[in-house]
């Protein structure tokens, strides 16, 4: 039953800066996510991965122009997110999908207790469930995630970053939405808390069998948590593959560079040489493959067009595989 939950067709988006100057954020994105899949999007900062999430959750700034089709399936009805108005989107939020934004642990109302934040989310989204039943559900959820019940009566500022992040993930999953978007949920956390969060996400995914879409620049988090990974560079998806396939047999030179740049504890790899170059700023719209200036294997054709090579689920945009 692998019908598609999210389907994006040649999505283009750019920020209007001033006058006619605009910065390209997303350049012709095509992406599919199947039901119950734990998909991941990896890429450096500035590669457009956060902009993509902002488009999907309809929380992009007004200065952003968008073209293309973004279809989300909810209760086997397809909604094109871009055509919906604010009220329709608001009626879908936290039911069709929930969204943990970047640095979510610093965006809790300082004037409210944790339990109030949970209760108000319930009231706005699920009229059927009564409060006592929900309170019980909330306390159990906190307990088996290792946060003691009494934290519910704390104000957010008294909890540590790691605890707040786990509370927010619970908040995002407690009403069992169809899709759960997560933007950099592990960044800024300590090693042990990061491991807790990743294991929490895995348990939630097995328990709810809803679809997860995780965005982070840390490829090792993708290796541990996701089933399918899309690598983004300068506003484009350059490679997509199931996680095991991608890490054991990376095709795109950029993916190889990303994976190599992560030191492996115990793996005697020694010094990793890197030529000094600029990070992927997408302001300059380049002809052909955007990675050609940084690519050690660049060939002349890279400057003109980009060939898409597909083998089963593994897809890569690179002229090296133009056989």
């Amino acid at each position, binding site marked *: 039953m692998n019908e598609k939950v999210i389907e994006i067709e040649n999505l283009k988006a750019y920020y209007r800066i001033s006058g006619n100057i605009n910065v390209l954020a997303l350049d012709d994105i095509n992406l599919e996510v199947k039901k119950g899949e734990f998909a991941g999007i990896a890429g*450096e*900062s500035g590669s457009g991965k956060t902009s993509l999430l902002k488009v999907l959750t309809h929380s992009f700034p007004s200065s952003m122009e968008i073209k293309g089709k973004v279809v989300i399936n909810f209760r086997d009805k397809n909604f094109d997110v871009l055509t919906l108005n604010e009220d329709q989107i608001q009626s879908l939020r936290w039911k069709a999908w929930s969204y943990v934004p970047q640095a979510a642990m610093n965006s809790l109302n300082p004037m409210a207790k944790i339990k109030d934040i949970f209760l108000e989310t319930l009231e706005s989204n699920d009229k059927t469930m009564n409060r006592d039943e929900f309170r019980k559900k909330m306390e159990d959820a906190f307990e088996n*995630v*290792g*946060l*003691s019940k009494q934290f519910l009566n704390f104000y957010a500022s*008294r*909890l*540590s*970053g790691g605890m707040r992040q786990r509370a927010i993930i619970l908040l995002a999953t407690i009403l069992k939405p169809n899709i759960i978007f997560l933007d950099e949920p592990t960044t800024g956390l*300590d*090693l*042990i*808390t*990061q*491991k*807790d969060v*990743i*294991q929490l996400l895995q348990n939630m995914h097995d328990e709810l069998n809803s679809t997860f879409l995780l965005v982070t*620049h*840390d*490829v*090792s*988090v993708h*290796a*541990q948590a996701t089933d399918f990974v899309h690598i983004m560079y300068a506003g484009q998806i350059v490679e997509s593959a199931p*996680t*095991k396939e991608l*890490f*054991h047999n990376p095709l795109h030179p950029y993916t190889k*560079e*990303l*994976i190599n*740049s*992560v*030191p*492996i*504890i*115990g793996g*005697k*790899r*020694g*010094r*990793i*040489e*890197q030529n*000094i170059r*600029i*990070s992927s*700023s997408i302001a300059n719209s380049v002809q052909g493959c955007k990675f050609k200036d940084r690519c050690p294997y660049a060939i002349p054709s890279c400057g003109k067009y980009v060939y898409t090579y597909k083998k089963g689920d593994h897809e890569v945009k690179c002229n090296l595989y133009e056989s």
Partner: protein
Amino acid sequence: MIKEETKLEEHLLEVVNVSKYFRSGSYLGTKFKAVDDVSFNLDKGEILLLIGESGCGKTTLSNLILGILKPSSGFIKYKGKIISKLRRNEKKYFIREIQPIFQDPYSTFNPFVRVDYYFKEVCLNFGIAKENSEIDQKISTVLNQVKMNTEIKGKFTHQFSGGQLQRLSIARALLTKPSLLIADEAVTMIDASLRVGILNIFADLNKDLNLAIIFISHDLSVGYYMVELSEKIKIIVMYRGTVVEEAPGESLFANPLHPYTRQLIESVPSIDPDRKWHSTTKHVVLELEEFNLNGCKYVKRCPFAMDICEKEDPPLLSLGKSKVRCWLYANVKDKNLTIDSLTKNGK
């Protein structure tokens, strides 16, 4: 004046039983031990990795060494002189000798001030160079040392990327020819793929200029990479303000002694999707309460916790070149000990 060369047996930096207490809330708040009885030595040209979770006191310790904070008890000696007791003119020499590198590259330089202004000021204030030609020459040498070739004259912070700014921050510190660099989470804000470039620079500086570096990080994989790059490297693991383990680089990763160090190494997400975690962590009460525990601070999370751990704070035992603060090793002085061998025979 501090003597130029240091006597052979004297360490570059000696931290002796240093503690730092803060009051939570002014005047009447409860005492809070951010750094609790920390001691270690650092020699010329040696790299020290200070590893620990956020809030374990590593930044407070770095501020103590930089002279920004004064220790509540114990003292810190730099080239034989106690830092908190330096006279005015010695303070200026001291600032030249120890330079910091900060975490956030974007706020290292004032956004309204040209970046090269800082370089000129360092040269003028520390009498490194007088005329412009000499200053420019000094600036270009340090820029080469950090492999930074773009022109920086007249440019502002927003005209550089994060990686470039961090290189400039290192270059600024090198101008005074320091003998100790303190890098507090220097690569945390840099993109993962560009991080390795910066770490290579630190390793080269250590080799070429025999420059001692205290590298503070919460990320073990960064630590491991530094160990691979340089030989003379020592690692200290801190937990809730206390040193729980001190060991030479390779042996800490190959054979971690303290349970906390083991748990840290285990929690690093591996790049290979097949290597999955199997253990889950024991969850614990608020971190703040752990600071003031009188027994071992790690007792609440430790899988091998014994009742003595609850009552008494374990001493820092030295086992060969390593030191560990854990009751598991208390009555066994055997050198090549690992936790598995210990727990196997039911200790």
